[in-house]
């Protein structure tokens, strides 16, 4: 081992690592034991199971408990129907608390100094330069304007009946949207308002 270390050390051209020297000194006559991978891996430090609440622990010990009132508020925000029976409500509460436990575990990770990801995009300088909307990108739109007046000059957009154009081309015509109407009067969609329900 010592013979093998020598060229390595000179190749690295740095001071020998003390522990290595000690090891080589101690085990000069025998080969040092390799890193015990099996031993290292025998004791798990994390398990996927930690993402779910353990069945042994009672729901009340978890840090985030939701009350029935909160559940109803969330269902209203999501435009979902309220639970039809107490059994359904307790099952909803149980599954919601499992979700919240999962979220808590994820949020425990230290993310100081890390910006939240908003989308998978090219965030390099080159990518940003490509996405930049400058004079070139707006040249066509600028061409669709005219200057009105000789003394009092004003800019006016030229109005025509043509459809607009997206950056990647004209959107395909999807036909008449009234085909989707469940209920209609003439060319309008109809919604029955009924009594006003909060918000």
């Amino acid at each position, binding site marked *: 081992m010592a013979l093998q270390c020598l060229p390595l050390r000179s190749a690295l051209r740095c001071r020998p690592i003390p522990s290595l020297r000690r090891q080589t000194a101690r085990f000069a006559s025998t080969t040092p034991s390799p890193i015990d991978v099996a031993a290292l891996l025998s004791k798990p430090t994390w398990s996927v199971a930690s993402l779910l609440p353990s069945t042994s622990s009672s729901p009340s010990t978890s840090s985030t408990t939701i009350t029935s009132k909160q559940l109803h508020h969330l269902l209203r*925000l999501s435009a979902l129907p309220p639970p039809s029976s107490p059994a359904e409500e307790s099952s909803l509460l149980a599954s919601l608390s499992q979700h919240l436990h999962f979220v808590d575990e994820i949020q425990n990770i230290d993310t100081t100094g890390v910006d939240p990801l908003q989308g998978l995009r090219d965030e390099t300088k080159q990518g940003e330069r490509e996405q930049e*909307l400058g004079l070139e990108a707006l040249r066509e739109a600028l061409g669709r304007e005219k200057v009105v007046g000789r003394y009092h000059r*004003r800019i006016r957009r030229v109005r025509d009946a043509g459809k607009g*154009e997206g950056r990647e081309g004209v959107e395909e015509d999807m036909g008449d*949207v009234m085909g989707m109407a469940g209920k209609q009067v003439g060319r*309008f969609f109809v919604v029955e*308002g009924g009594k006003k329900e909060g*918000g």
Partner: protein
Amino acid sequence: MSVPSVRLRSLKALPALYTRPGYTTRPCYVSKWLQSRGLQVSTAPPPNAVPLRKHLKDEAKRKKADAKAGTGLRRDNAVTARLQKWELTVGIEVHAELNSACKLFSSATAASGDSTAVPNSNVAAFDAALPGAQPQFQVATLLPALRAAVALGCDIQRKSGWDRKHYFHWDQPNGYQITQYYQPFAKDGAIRLSAEDGVPEEDLLGGRSLLIGIKQIQMEQDTAKTTHHPPSSYHIDYNRSGHPLIEIITLPHIHSPQTAAAVVRKLQSVLKAVDACTTGMELGGLRADVNVSVRQRGTIGSSSYSGVAGLGQRTEIKNLSSFKAVEDAIVAERDRQISVLEAGGIIAGETRGWSLGSTETTRLRGKEGEVDYRYMPDADLPPLIIGNDLIDHLRDRLPELPDTTVERVQREYGVTEKDARTIVALDDGDRLEYMEATVELLQPRLLDVDDLKLGKLAGNWVLHELGGFLTANNLCWSDLKIYPIDLADIIAYLTRGEITSRTAKQLLEYSNDDSTSRRVGDLIYDLGLLLRPLSDDEYTELARTIMDENPGMVAAVKEKGQKGKIMWFVGQMVRRGEEGTIEPGKAKEVVERMLAE
């Protein structure tokens, strides 16, 4: 064909303009001009018709008497006392529809405010929120948005983001609105107002103008249009869904209802001038929400809003759709809040509504009904990155802002401030263009008159004379067939003293006639409208004739000293004399001289 009969023939056509159905005459003297022609209009003025000037004078006297009666005065005193104790603070959020060809995230045609498009005909897949439809940012919508931000002096952020504001409503098909909550594209602007914009004296605090800060401007989507069909059904038109809007949020620097209305008016005029938002408030292109709070003068409240601390609890009034509504709603809400606080209550932070003609705001939503919008960045859209070259290009070529234009018109054309403001605002700037063209044409025709005088003349004619002509004939500006060159000729002849002012007004009539292609000079020659000045003797003779016929009036002036009646004599002379001969100025001199004898 003698000249007079030619003149009469074309004049015979004129009564038609004054007797069209729908044209109502005042119950007082119809135009003196018509009567002087000796033409019979279909109905004679009623026998007890009151002369217009007398009518106006009586009204003014009556109003003054009412005010002095004391009830009005007492109420005003009470209000001012209240205002001295309580200070109002207002912040405004204006939503303005951008002038763009397509919508914000789809290439469907954007409906303009007054379009007559078939309902639900400009709806793309994303506007109808079809599952799987993706938004695609339309770059052309950046132009009006950037121009608006530059015109309001904002810092354009290079990088801004799109966020989702979640709430359920039938006019929001996606279940969320795409807006710029966390990173708006423009921040920290300002708008300047002066007393002529409508700011009351006490707000100016002795300064010449007031600077209202703008916190930010952001782009967002509009919702669909719903119309209520009682009892409970709603008709929805998705043409407007996805239309680009900008939201302009001002800082709470506004301290009176009149200033608030002035801010909204000024914003509308600035946005119109840079072609960012061309539909006005009355067409639904501009909507305002106001945040109102009061506090006792000298105290510090516990709320803060947009970084301004020490304010009282605020309430929000949504969906105000006219300038008057903004002012009235703020007054009503201020009074309500003061009453509640003076009675010992507290103001709840709620959302309120206002309808035209109400006396108090109504509660729409309390704090417990406050919607949780769950703002989150939209993952389907890349961030908006705006290049500096584009901003510089737009800034260099930004059209003149209304303040600059008014100031320039006053300076270069000698027009009064009030007239300048009116001309600049009329007809989308076309009236000002016309006036400037007229002045340029007048310069070679009246070389000895100084430029400011020419400007004043042109301004007066374009604004008042042409304006009067248009209303009298029920025309709009685009129907006018009088070109700047015709107007310049008329003014030139008048200023040189070659025609009388009555003739000039007649010439307006002739020039507007489509069938004649003659220039003004030819018209004057053909119709013999040149001033044929009468000699002193002829004036004296005419004046004597009139005086002999009206000894009563003569006595009134001579003995009772009613100098006003002199103008009556002048009027009679003008009527009696032949067309294009009597000059009112000279006639007045003659009459005065004769009555002084």
